[in-house]
């Protein structure tokens, strides 16, 4: 068999994995790879920063369910991937990231652009590799894609010394995987399944609490059928938005710190929580001692370490969320829980998300409502982090999975813009909207160039309140309005976009908003809308830090 170089093995392996698009940024240690990428059969997207590349790969992965792939050079290129790896790790996003590394002979000698990337990324990857022999490269890539996409998905990093990419080896892509310490397939425990069904059938005030795991397992339809049959209302976490259609009468929306009152009341009053692919994050539970005091918990998760990590589970059901629900469904009796449903509906009717409308200023919530109306709730919504993220979660109606992309666990500002460009490449025919704040937007603003270069029709909506709104809100409520470092003096975003060659407009009058948004959505290409919104608008309702989720203020 003819021998080929490590860089060629890299290309051939990615072809075997059916990679459609690679996001990256070149540099010294990856020049041999970039040489081969010059005529690779898949798309090679040059971002303007490695952080942009990895968030774009993340947005691509979340919006399509496929593995996102990115590459950087060694040292600073690789350390620029760190935030993106941690973001993907916290939200269980399947991703394979390659970092170039200095030549093997220079490892550990503080060589130019050397950083111990395997050491740095150990706690923020599902697994990582340092390639020490070109003969291992194909096997490692195969394993990386398998680990990233199976079980509880997550990012895998491959650190690739430059000499390995130049050395020659025979290319043979392994057929099978041999990882004795990794078995992501679980046989569902039949006894536990019966126990769970019994508990569900005898419950009076059950709720389903679905999260990111429901989306990554593709449990959407099964979950819907399960909820309909059992007549059990469904709460969806931030990461679970879209796992269950919000227009369904059984939908209770999002719980937690900025969730809706009905979801928090339902959790607090419930006698049984059927948790589906959630990790009971502190932003959901509030003060743990008072969280759902009367509820027993059935916890469905593919990661055994999530069971009883934060909230004790009476019945753990380890396995793929979709498969577990499929196993559980036939055991569930069609039941009438109408007293509970009536109570839920009353909470919903009495406690919608609300804000004071004001004709003098544009309310950010109104912007999201209008976007929802104009896109019929069908756009892919990508958010930054902060108030913009919460309003996007609250005021848009999510009805299908993979249409809400947001950094939930890590809360990474600067995620939205690059993630939106990645999502647009994965979902060419869909409308992709980046809902942004003026603070977050500036954290990866350089990706406007990438969006323009590839003419990606991303719609960028800046909810511009000239402040770091969420921190400003906390300062207003809990720090005597001492606005320390949260009021921003911003550049002219319209001129900025125009400098990048992107169509842009500023909206300051609420009466012009609908028309302007409609124009933006109809524009054939990328658009930036700088929308001046009320600076002092807060995200409500809100559970103050350290309180129980039933103790909400505002809204």
């Amino acid at each position, binding site marked *: 068999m003819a021998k080929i170089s490590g860089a060629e093995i890299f290309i051939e392996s990615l072809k075997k994995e059916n990679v459609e698009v690679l996001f990256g940024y070149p540099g010294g240690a990856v020049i041999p790879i970039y040489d081969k990428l010059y005529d690779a059969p898949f798309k090679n997207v040059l971002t303007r920063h490695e952080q942009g590349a990895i968030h774009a790969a993340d947005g691509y992965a979340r919006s399509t369910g496929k593995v996102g792939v990115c590459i950087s050079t060694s040292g600073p290129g690789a350390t620029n991937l760190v935030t993106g790896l941690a973001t993907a790790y916290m939200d269980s996003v399947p991703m394979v990231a390659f970092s170039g590394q200095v030549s093997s002979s220079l490892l550990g000698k503080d060589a130019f652009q050397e950083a111990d990337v395997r050491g740095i990324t150990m*706690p923020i990857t*599902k697994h990582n590799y340092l390639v020490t022999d070109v003969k291992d490269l194909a096997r490692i890539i195969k394993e990386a894609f398998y680990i990233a996409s199976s079980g509880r998905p997550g990012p895998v990093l491959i650190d690739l010394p430059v000499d390995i990419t130049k050395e020659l080896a025979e290319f043979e892509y392994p057929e099978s995987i041999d*990882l004795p*310490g990794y078995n992501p397939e679980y046989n569902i425990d039949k006894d536990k399944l019966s126990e769970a069904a019994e508990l569900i059938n005898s419950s009076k005030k059950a709720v389903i609490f679905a999260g990111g795991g429901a989306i990554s397992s593709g449990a959407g339809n099964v979950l819907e059928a399960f909820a309909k049959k059992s007549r059990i209302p469904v709460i969806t976490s931030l990461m679970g938005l879209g796992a269950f259609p919000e227009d369904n009468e059984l939908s209770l929306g999002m719980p937690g710190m900025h969730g809706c009152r009905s979801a928090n009341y339902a959790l607090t009053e419930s006698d049984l929580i059927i948790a589906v692919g959630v990790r009971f994050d502190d932003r959901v539970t509030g003060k743990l001692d008072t969280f759902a005091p009367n509820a027993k918990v059935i916890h469905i998760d593919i*990661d055994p*370490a999530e069971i009883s990590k934060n909230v004790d589970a009476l019945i753990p059901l380890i396995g793929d969320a979709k498969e577990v629900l499929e196993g559980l469904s036939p055991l569930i009796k069609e039941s009438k829980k109408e007293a509970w449903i009536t109570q839920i509906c009353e909470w919903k009717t009495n406690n919608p998300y609300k804000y004071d409308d004001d004709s003098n200023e544009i309310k950010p919530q109104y912007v999201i409502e209008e976007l929802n109306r104009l896109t019929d709730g069908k756009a892919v919504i990508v958010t930054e982090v902060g108030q913009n993220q919460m309003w996007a979660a609250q005021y848009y109606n999510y009805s299908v999975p993979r249409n809400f992309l947001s950094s939930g666990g890590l809360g990474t500002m600067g995620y939205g813009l690059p993630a939106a460009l990645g999502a647009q490449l994965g979902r060419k025919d869909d409308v992709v909207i980046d809902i942004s704040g003026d603070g977050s937007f500036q954290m990866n603003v350089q990706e406007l160039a990438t969006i323009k270069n590839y003419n990606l029709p991303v719609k960028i909506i800046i909810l511009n309140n000239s402040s770091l709104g969420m921190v400003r809100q906390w300062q207003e409520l809990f720090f005597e309005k001492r606005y320390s470092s949260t009021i921003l003096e911003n550049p002219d975003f319209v001129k900025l976009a125009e400098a990048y060659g992107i169509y842009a407009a500023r909206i300051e009058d609420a009466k012009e908003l609908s028309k302007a948004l409609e124009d933006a959505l109809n524009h054939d290409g990328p658009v930036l809308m700088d929308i001046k919104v009320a600076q002092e608008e807060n995200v409500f309702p809100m559970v103050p830090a350290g309180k129980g989720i039933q103790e909400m203020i505002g809204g």
Partner: protein
Amino acid sequence: MKHKHILSVTVANHPGVLTRISGLLSRRNFNIDSLNVGETDNPDYSRMTIELSADDRTLEQVKKQLDKLIEVIEIIELDKSNIVDRDLALIRVDCPKENRSEIIQIVDTFRAKVVDLSKDSIMIEATGTEYKIEGLIEILKEFGIRDIVRTGIVALNRGQVTD
């Protein structure tokens, strides 16, 4: 309630595995009392013996988090009533001539060994349960201990009892 637990962890014999495991334990705020590692009969695998103090809930998390590591093959929590566990210590003690016979007597009592002797010091090798080692150290303290090095616990389950 915190108790001492011993985990016997079979891991892939790869560079960096020790970092991965010790890093995970410290990052998640789990307290290790001792950890040692050595190759098994199969050169592809190493065995770590990890001794830690934890309540039941924390122990459960330690095991599950360790199990998530791709290079961890198997985790067994050893049942203290059914194991052979050993700690090895090398202890250098001040030993002027006049104390020599007394110290050697103590060493004999503990079934330890003298492995080095100089004009004014003596080195003792002791193997046994950690309680035995601690007992020996306690007694040697009055003579003046200069250096101690200990392996921490290594342990294996006892064989099946046959009739």
